[in-house]
């Protein structure tokens, strides 16, 4: 009876929270709270990575106070001051239901459907999911609707695949439903290979039952009795929580044989990836589940007609499946009120790079890039100048400041030379060199190319050689044109999506930041100060006070000078590591 009126405390324990020390905070809180008869609850990630570790205190009257940056040493203050003393700890407050904080925009501009309960429920407890209408959508679909009605509803919702290409989900379900076969599979792509993307991880770690419920509805609709979730091995916590969730769902009759007492069976298994980006591509992923090398094959036939072990297979992304329960809970008509004409619903984005508030944001389709970066993300770190945002990972593109008012939906992004991709947004400021960035992506795709088709295997290599040459200051006239020619040839001729999209980062930076390429080639200049062959460090004599810090820190002893006298850098020894530049407290070192 006391419990209902007592305080509740939740700690965000997803990978990012734990990396920031949330597990230590949790351990600290357990004995402190035990004295007051409170057991701290475990939850997923609220998406405010910039403020981790996060601890939420819910008062007996239901007010919520979210504390940020709560490292273990600060746990006691929250217990003593707030829970015992009844006074919120102002200086740690990140968000509050009854008071204004600087993070209000981070949440108020979002529209949380998928993430509604991530960071609220305990991901290791099915009861916690059930308390928020969990599995109601499955019950409705299986008990009240025919297979075709379920597919119609998904079609009506306008849901498009969240794995990158944006293929209409209902249509894919219908193809798989209509495919002839005695055995069908439902597979989830949880490979999340795009660097800079972690929305799938947050769903897997924060609300795994939403994925399981979505997949089970899909299995009912297409007539599958077996399924796989292909998770990348770099996500040990996600795998652990999925295992628990699958077991609990089986025990409760939402998975396994005779689901909800009907004749519908669906058995779900986990397959761990083994570290290959190309396995995110659907045909490579299926080969990998079969125990083979993850090499793509030409399509058609599409997995819907011939997938896993040659059987009709439905394959969708984590976020796609996790949208399904919401469609049935809200109804397709209500669900599709959010978004644009051709892109319905919400999309989760991972905000990373040089942005103030890194984290996850779920926004309605059609929001502008400016709103995401400035209103939700709080703008650029250290109030530097925005240069570009990279969207869509190694297959995507870079958008410049002129495109900040672009509507964020599948079609506008593609038209602008980028793509939705998985939803990673990496923000860059003036200190990122766009040629170096293009080289970075191409190095990645080059090393991840499976080697099966020549355009991707050899073509990306040639492109990379040219980019290396340009960043080393050895660019030649005609290099830009060769890059464009190679890029469009690879795009048109590579076997799978990896090769076809590999030139995108180069082509999009050439489209919007061509001047940077030209400066590298024609003037031997890297304006961002990144390409070490093209920069030099100098000491401004008037500003140098002779503190000797630079000389002491120089790893190659290139700096000389007497104490209290201006110092000098020997350019023939300098390796351009930039340590002196960072250590100088008097801004006496400049980059040219």
């Amino acid at each position, binding site marked *: 009876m006391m419990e209902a009126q007592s305080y509740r405390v939740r700690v965000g324990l997803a990978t990012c929270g734990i990396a920031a020390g949330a597990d230590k905070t949790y351990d600290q809180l357990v004995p402190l709270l035990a004295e007051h008869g409170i057991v701290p609850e475990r939850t997923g990630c609220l998406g405010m990575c910039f403020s981790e570790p996060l601890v939420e205190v819910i008062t007996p009257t239901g007010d919520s106070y979210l504390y940020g940056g709560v490292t273990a040493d600060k746990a006691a203050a929250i217990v003593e001051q707030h829970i015992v003393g009844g006074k919120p700890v102002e200086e740690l407050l990140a968000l509050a239901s009854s008071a204004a904080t600087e993070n209000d925009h981070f949440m108020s501009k979002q529209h949380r459907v998928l993430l509604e309960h991530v960071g609220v429920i305990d991901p290791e407890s099915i009861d916690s999911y059930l308390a928020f209408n969990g599995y109601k959508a499955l019950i409705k679909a299986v008990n009240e609707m025919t297979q075709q009605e379920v597919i119609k509803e998904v079609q009506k919702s306008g849901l498009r695949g969240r794995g990158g290409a944006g293929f209409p989900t209902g249509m894919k379900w219908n193809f798989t439903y209509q495919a002839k076969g005695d055995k069908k599979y439902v597979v989830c792509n949880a490979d999340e290979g795009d*660097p800079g993307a972690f929305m799938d991880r947050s769903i897997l770690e924060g609300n795994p039952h939403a994925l399981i419920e979505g997949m089970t509805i899909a299995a009912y609709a297409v007539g599958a009795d077996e399924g796989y979730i292909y998770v990348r*091995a*770099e996500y040990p916590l996600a795998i652990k929580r999925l295992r628990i969730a699958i077991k609990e769902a089986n025990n409760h009759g939402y998975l396994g044989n005779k689901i909800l007492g009907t004749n519908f069976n669906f058995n779900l298994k986990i397959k761990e990836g*083994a570290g*290959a980006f190309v396995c995110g591509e659907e045909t490579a992923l299926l080969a990998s589940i079969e*125990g083979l090398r993850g090499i793509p094959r030409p399509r058609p036939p599409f997995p819907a007609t011939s997938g896993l072990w040659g059987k009709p297979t439905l394959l969708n992304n984590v976020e796609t499946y996790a949208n399904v329960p919401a469609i049935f809970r809200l109804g397709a008509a209500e669900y599709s009120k959010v978004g644009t004409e051709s892109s319905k619903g919400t999309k989760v984005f991972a905000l990373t790079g040089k942005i103030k508030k890194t984290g996850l944001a779920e926004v309605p389709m059609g929001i502008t890039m400016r709103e995401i970066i400035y209103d939700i993300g709080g703008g650029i770190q250290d109030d530097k100048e925005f240069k570009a945002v990279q969207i869509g990972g190694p297959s995507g593109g870079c958008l410049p400041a002129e495109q900040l008012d672009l509507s964020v939906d599948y079609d506008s992004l593609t038209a602008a030379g980028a793509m939705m991709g998985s939803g990673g947004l990496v923000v860059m400021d003036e200190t990122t060199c766009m040629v170096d960035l293009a080289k970075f992506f191409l190095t990645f795709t080059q090393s991840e190319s499976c080697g099966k088709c020549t355009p991707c295997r050899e073509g990306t290599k040639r492109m990379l050689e040219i980019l290396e040459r340009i960043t080393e200051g050895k660019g030649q006239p005609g290099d830009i044109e060769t890059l464009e020619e190679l890029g469009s040839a690879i795009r048109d001729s590579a076997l799978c999506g990896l090769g076809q999209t590999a030139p995108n980062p180069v082509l999009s930076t050439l489209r919007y930041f061509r001047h940077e390429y030209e400066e590298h080639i024609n003037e031997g200049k890297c304006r961002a100060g990144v390409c070490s062959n093209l920069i030099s460090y100098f000491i401004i004599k008037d500003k140098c006070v002779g503190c000797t810090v630079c000389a002491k820190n120089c790893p190659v002893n290139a700096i000389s000078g007497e104490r209290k006298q201006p110092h000098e850098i020997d350019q023939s020894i300098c390796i351009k590591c930039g340590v002196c530049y960072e250590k100088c407290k008097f801004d006496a070192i400049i980059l040219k």
Partner: protein
Amino acid sequence: MKATHQCHAADPFDYAPVDEILERYQGQKGATIPVLQAIQEVYGYLPRQAMEYAAKQLRIPFSRIYGVATFYAQFHLTPRGENIIRVCQGTACHVRGAAKIVDALKEQLGIEVGETTEDLKFTLESVACIGACGLAPVIMINNDTFGRLTPEKIKEILKNY
């Protein structure tokens, strides 16, 4: 299947764990990768004897197992250190200074990426993304993730291993 490893009487290699793993996955479709993952879990890498033995027991050509083992970044054919350090080279980490973190690790350990220290204590590897991009730059040591790193913090972290 149990007693078959006795035919390796003169071979000091301990095949018992492989037998156990093969039994666990017996009859399962597409078990090659999970079997290799389990073998690596036991030995720390994929010893050639273990792969040859598994191929024989699974009745698949050795070349197929070897092909799979060399395709995926996760598999290692040589012994690795006691602690595996994986430094993220993903986009978010790259933009937030991952290069300096790699340099600090290389300097502290005296090895290059992909190498193991002489005392077999650490192996340094790179990874494309750990999924903690909001805390970039990030590294993972065994199963623990460390975020918001600076070169100075690396020294502190390594001390605990």
